């Protein structure tokens, strides 16, 4: 009788400046995407894309009115758009998950029509890259709140650089820098910390049983 278990590996070592982040990792090899991994990323991306579209409508209306004339302040409300990358990365924990999820979300929110047209897709790629690089810097080994905050924050400067070429080339450098900082802050709080809380809630609802966060939840409950 053979015993076979799919308990994902735990990374026992300390990692990348986050000594307490002992995240459960995806099954090895990390590049061996299961069907459920791929589908979960695209479905999460689609659902968040619909939410992005709704947020875009809100951002355009009431929020634009609130921050009109001072676009850098509007950057405080950009964080939700970085959520897909953080969530995708935290759930599936494989290289490329964050980028893929953010791009799908951008694509889905673009098709019904947004303020930004096809640049939505470019923004999605840029933001996804920022998030992905954060997880890559941590060696795809840390997926705690610190990693989430870093991933959310890093999407900010990437988006700011891109926007400074397309939307705001005429701003002074200081304002561009301030804008990047504000986007990073918004990303860190809303997408990073918010995304991490969202994953915990989804795991508690039993919706992530096939994924490392689901197992982390079960282990905390067992203790």
């Amino acid at each position, binding site marked *: *009788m*053979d*015993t076979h*278990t*799919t*308990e*994902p590996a735990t990374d026992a070592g300390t990692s990348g400046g986050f000594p307490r982040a002992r995240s459960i990792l995806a099954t090895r090899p990390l590049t061996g995407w299961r*069907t*459920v991994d*791929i*589908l*979960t990323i*695209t*479905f*999460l991306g*689609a*659902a*968040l*894309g*619909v939410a992005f579209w709704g947020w*875009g*409508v809100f951002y*355009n209306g009431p929020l*634009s009115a609130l921050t*009109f*004339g*001072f*676009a*850098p302040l*509007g950057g405080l409300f950009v964080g939700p758009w970085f959520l897909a990358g953080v969530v995708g990365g935290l759930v599936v924990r494989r290289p490329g998950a964050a980028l893929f999820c953010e791009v*799908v979300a951008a*694509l*889905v929110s*673009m*098709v*019904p*029509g947004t*303020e930004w*047209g*096809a*640049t939505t*897709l*470019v923004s999605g790629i840029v933001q996804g890259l920022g998030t992905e690089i954060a997880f890559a810097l941590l060696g795809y080994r840390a997926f705690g709140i610190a990693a989430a905050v870093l991933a959310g924050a890093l999407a900010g400067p990437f988006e700011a650089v891109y926007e400074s070429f*397309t*939307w*705001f*080339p*005429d*701003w*002074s450098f200081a304002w561009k820098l301030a804008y990047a900082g504000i986007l990073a802050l918004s990303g860190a709080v809303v997408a990073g910390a918010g995304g991490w809380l*969202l994953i915990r809630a*989804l795991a508690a*609802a*039993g*919706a992530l*049983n*096939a994924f490392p966060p*689901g*197992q982390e939840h*079960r282990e905390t409950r067992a203790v």
Partner: protein
Amino acid sequence: MSPATPATGGHVTLDGVTWRPYGRREPVLRDISLSLAPGERVLLAGPSGSGKSTLLRAIAGLLETADAGELTGSVLIDGHAPGARAGEVGLVLQEPGAGVVASSIGRDVAFGLENVGMPRADMPAVVRSAVGAVGLPLPLDTPTGALSGGETQRLALAGALALAPTVLLLDEPTAMLDPGHAAQVRTSVGRALAAYPITTVVVEHVLGPWVDLVDRLLVLDAQGALVADGPVRDVLAGERERLLDMGIWVPDAPPPTPLVSGALSAAPASARGQEVTATPLTIERTVRLLDGSTRTSTAARLEAELAPAPGTATALVGPSGSGKSTVLLAFAGALAPSDGAVTAGDEPVSELSTHALAGRLGWVPQWSSSTILGRTVLDEVLVTSRALGEETPERVVEAHALLSSLGLGHLETADPRELSGGEQRRLAIASAILHQPPLLLADEPTVGQDRHTWAAVVGLLDSYRRAGGAVLVSTHDAAVVERSDGVVELTPPPKEPPPPQPRRVLAAHAGPLALLVSAIVAIPAGILPGHWHTSLVVLAVQVALACLALSAPGVGARPSGRLRRVVLRLVPGLLGGLSVGWSTWLLGGHDTATAVTAGLRVVIIVLPSAVLLPLVDPDRLGDHLAQRLRMPARPVVALAAALQRVHTLGAVWSEISLARRVRGLGTDARRPVALVRDLATATFGLLVRTLRMAADLAVAMDARGFASASRRTWFAPAPWRPADTLVVVASLIPIAAALLLTP
């Protein structure tokens, strides 16, 4: 291999299979050993939660596809692990549509063939033969979304047969269908099995209709152990009492006696308001498509007045598609009829406040899993009482009693989302009835219940009615209809012929990639101009090109609303242009010319998107990404599958909002904090449901060889046409203009 030449084999051997999902103390399957001979047909029965579906997934080798756990023992198909050949084990899931991958019948059946890399030229013959084998005589380009539940199940069967399986597993294939459609599916199965000697395992809890189709009956007990195994009639005769004890619907046994429920102490509070009544109704439903267009059709017609009286039960009956659920939704105030009215006193129910609505009626939805609002089972039952400010100690005592009477007492602290489908439905009934509204709307309350829980549910409805409540129930269950005081039969509204296809606009002849590229090319066109003079010229060129792109020469109906749609999509862009222009003026040295240029830049970048992106066909996008750009096949297929379901997300969202409104937690625009919280909860519910969809689809796709589909072929070609080149070239003209004018 095609269904015309079925593979031989299909010898299934399980040896000591035990499966414990992580997070559960007890195994779901316990030491199961059995052997199925090639071509044998087996019915698998057991009480709800006994691991029947799990056993099917074990045989298919898909236990770990969407769950994690500890598996011991071995499963062998003809001596090797299941899935050694893609599609060797076919699987049909319980929920119609859970495994639908593509947007048309042909593509969906061909999905497995694509995964095993069959040449495109060979596919149509195999697809037709599989579709013929299940008796689904529809054109291959019929949209999968247009199929009924029964047709969708037959489509899933055809998709499995196309891969010439040696083992076929059917997981309650008719549990969610009405009797007519269920019979069609069984006929299809019978037909396929007569033609091909496939080893077949069917899970069902209503055994009668399957007895003639199978040779052998296996019974699992509540602990997940195999307790009976033998020729179907011998087991039915020898184990009849045990099967009845387990709550299994044994053929020819009379319906169980409803349990008298003493859980509801007080009489329904009819003093809360006038009765809800309906005049004759016509209800239309509008589907919003991804490209922004809408389609409206009649969903239900109520021919006569309907006024559910206190102390009576009225049954809404009629075939699938006759609008039973739609009528209930109108009573729940979720849909305003286009003709006629549903009113409480003088007020239309759709305009009642969330508290007034919750006080007047309770609603048991057809799909209860996405409308869960509480964190624990007890919490869930008390949601409405709490919202109405009636959470008294007596009410909590009643809640305990109600849950026990429905067999949910031991689950009070469990997360309601973790319950089985049948348990969730009973929980939904308890949640709708606890605050004792004068009217109870119940959509198929007895589906998926075993004999014991059926008796509890019907008994509860009976005692509620005897206490003076009015019940309006939609049902296919003959025993429920028989117990009703009145029956309203709905007939399906006649299908209106689809409106004639209008002429296509010129740009719609281009494929998705060309449209996307052309929209993105506007970014450099916007950035290049350094002065607003140039920007204006570039914009003028774009407007001229847009007019050309949206013109629709030829004969036929004129497309309508072209300008309106573009303007609607452009409004946010114009706002964005204003905002960018203003902030540039403010932060870029108060220079008006620079500010105007910056504003125009936004408009130039966004205008082509507003014209071209609505024309992108999400289905063809997948084909083009994979075949033209050679992107990796599996992510592209997953993307296409997700895009194809985006519109269902909207439906799930409305269902969640409705559940909140009916239960007294509806949104209130006057309290912004509550509004944000409500939106957040609804989004969360949507995400949970989305993740479930993805997990189910993963199982269905892996059963059709998707896990190993790195070298796929594609059913539909993705050619690059002259129209594509034309659109891309035209999109470069504004850039050329910008370059020419920039010194």
